[in-house]
């Protein structure tokens, strides 16, 4: 096991820049998730770390060893592929033992190691079967076993759950988390599924268009997105962003939103006339049936009863907002709700750049660590 360091890695395919000078550090034993929409470069980055793609420039270290120019087989990594790539012409046992044989590990020891991972993944009974005789979930376990048995410095996973159906995926996710806790292995995990990223990752690196936008713990990413993109990519429903302008009043600056005035905390680099976005998560919005000070009227447009909670789409002036309510509260389209935004739950963004704006007051719980990759 080892830490992984990527320094200024760039990769282009023809004229398309897939990775723009990416740098990151994965700590020893960390479960590190690369998250982003399709085409953001997350799989390319993983493949560069694996050695399946050659980088145009930049350096990659695994442990203290530079591996930039090495082929995959000399990097001491293992990988779980999206389609699993379990060899169809080999039995499960031979699949798992494949890497050990390539390393000329004695058959006795190989057998012991295969038996151990097979037990860990509960596939002991399948060792004598061909992959075609397995279910999707079983094949996925074989792919994981084949990687674990190598005891690699780092385990790379490329959307390993995306080919499973919803129920199985839930199960396999918990299983992966348990495996990581048991083995303490360094894992780099690629996914486009934010729920997977949140549930598995020690840290998440959110990627977009070949760049890392934010690296943080799942909860920090959820609560304090560094950009509008991160806020709307993570969370279901996505973070609300309400558009308004900074205006100057008698007792200081305020935020003008659809003809209403909201108090503005002291923010850095903000001046009157600037367009801002007020970012707030649906569950953090306070909802009242009756008007009160600082509350904005919103007209209910759509009510979606989702079981554990109701998802409401409402309108403030020309802007739409999503909020959640506990079930059973009488809400109907056309009704007016009074919304207020607890100031500590609001994330302010610059409307032009889409970047979060830092607050001046040191009291506000340490926002500002936007990610170690930017700048």
């Amino acid at each position, binding site marked *: 096991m080892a830490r992984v360091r990527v320094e200024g890695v760039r990769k282009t395919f023809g004229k398309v820049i897939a990775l723009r000078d990416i740098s990151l550090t994965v700590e020893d034993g960390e479960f590190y998730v690369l998250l982003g929409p399709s085409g953001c470069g997350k799989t390319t980055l993983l493949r560069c770390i694996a050695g399946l793609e050659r980088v145009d420039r930049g350096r990659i270290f695994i442990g203290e060893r530079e591996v930039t120019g090495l082929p995959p087989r000399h990097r001491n990594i293992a990988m779980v592929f999206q389609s699993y790539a379990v*060899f169809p012409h080999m039995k499960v046992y031979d699949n798992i033992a494949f890497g050990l044989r390539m390393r000329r590990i004695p058959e006795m020891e190989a057998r012991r190691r295969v038996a151990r991972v097979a037990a860990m993944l509960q596939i002991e009974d399948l060792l004598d079967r061909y992959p075609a005789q397995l279910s999707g979930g079983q094949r996925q376990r074989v792919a994981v076993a084949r990687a674990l048995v190598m005891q690699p410095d780092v385990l790379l996973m490329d959307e390993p759950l995306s080919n499973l159906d919803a129920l199985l995926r839930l199960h396999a996710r918990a299983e992966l988390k348990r495996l990581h806790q048991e083995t303490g292995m360094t894992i780099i995990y690629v996914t486009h599924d934010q729920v997977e990223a949140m549930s598995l990752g020690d840290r998440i690196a959110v990627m977009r268009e070949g760049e890392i936008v934010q690296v943080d713990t799942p909860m920090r990413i959820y609560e304090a997105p560094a950009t509008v993109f991160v806020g709307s990519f993570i969370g279901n429903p996505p973070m609300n962003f309400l558009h308004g302008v900074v205006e100057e009043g008698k007792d200081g600056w305020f935020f003008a939103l659809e003809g209403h005035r909201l108090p503005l905390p002291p923010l850095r680099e903000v001046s009157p006339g600037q367009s801002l976005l007020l970012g707030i998560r649906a569950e953090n919005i306070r909802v009242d049936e009756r008007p009160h000070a600082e509350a904005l009227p919103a007209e209910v447009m759509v009510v979606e009863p989702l079981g554990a909670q109701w998802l409401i789409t409402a309108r403030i002036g020309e802007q739409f907002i999503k909020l959640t309510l506990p079930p059973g509260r009488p809400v109907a389209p056309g009704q007016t709700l009074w919304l207020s935004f607890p100031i500590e739950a609001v994330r302010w963004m610059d409307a032009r750049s889409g970047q979060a704006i830092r607050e001046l007051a040191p009291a506000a719980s340490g926002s500002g660590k936007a990610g170690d990759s930017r700048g």
Partner: protein
Amino acid sequence: MGKGKAPEWLLPLALLMPAALFLTLFIAIPSVQALWLAFQTPGGSWSLEPFRRMVTDTRFLPALRNTILLIALIIPIQLVMALTMALIAQSRRRGAGFFLYLYAIPLAISELAAGLVWLAIFTERGYLNVILRGLGWIERPIVFLSYERPLGILLAVVVAEVWRATAIVMVTLVAGLQMILGEYWEAAEVFGANLLQKIRYVVLPLLRPSLQAALIIRTLFAFQTFAVVVALGGGVLPVLASEAYTWYVGANNPHVAAAYSLVILALSAVATGFYLYVLRVRPEEMGR
């Protein structure tokens, strides 16, 4: 979705019928006729005479030997070259697609034309001698193709056929390789296999269906090798197909010619069965 009601299968049947009738008329019936011809005398009575004449002919055994020898020499070389070409053409390096097209060019070239192309190289004053002289290795031209040295002709035929027909094998393998070269190849790479190990443990076993198809089609065609042998060797090097041709055109004896064609058919069937058996793939080994 078809449900098996009468009109449902009537249409496909009607669409298939013309082709089926044609193939029956021009493949099935002639094959039966060939059987008839081979067991009749020119007079029309039943007899083993055509077979007796074929087997006792001094050129029969050499023809059989040469045909099999050609197959044994040509096909392994083609397999190795075709696999190399296919791997080159399917790699992700720049220009791979261009090479794929170049390697496929001989697909359009006939056996006869290929024979004449290589005749231009192997004749006494041909390009091979020109090049050897240019390298300073020889002073006077070497005679490669002569009546005294059938082995020279045989090797020339091997070269010409490898040149012409490797493309057919390659194209068949390319189709199969496309499936393997993605994640299976990469998985083998990640788990420590070097180039030869990847080919040995992953590509070749997974390629078995394509290899089988390529070997069958190549062997079937190789049993019919004819024009290239004529072009390079005149009549010096007999093969089964050229003997069938000579008996029909030269000796005007369709009976012995039919006997020869039955020998080719029998060998083809045996070879096909052999490949199907040796390279058989259990279904559970191939599914994803």
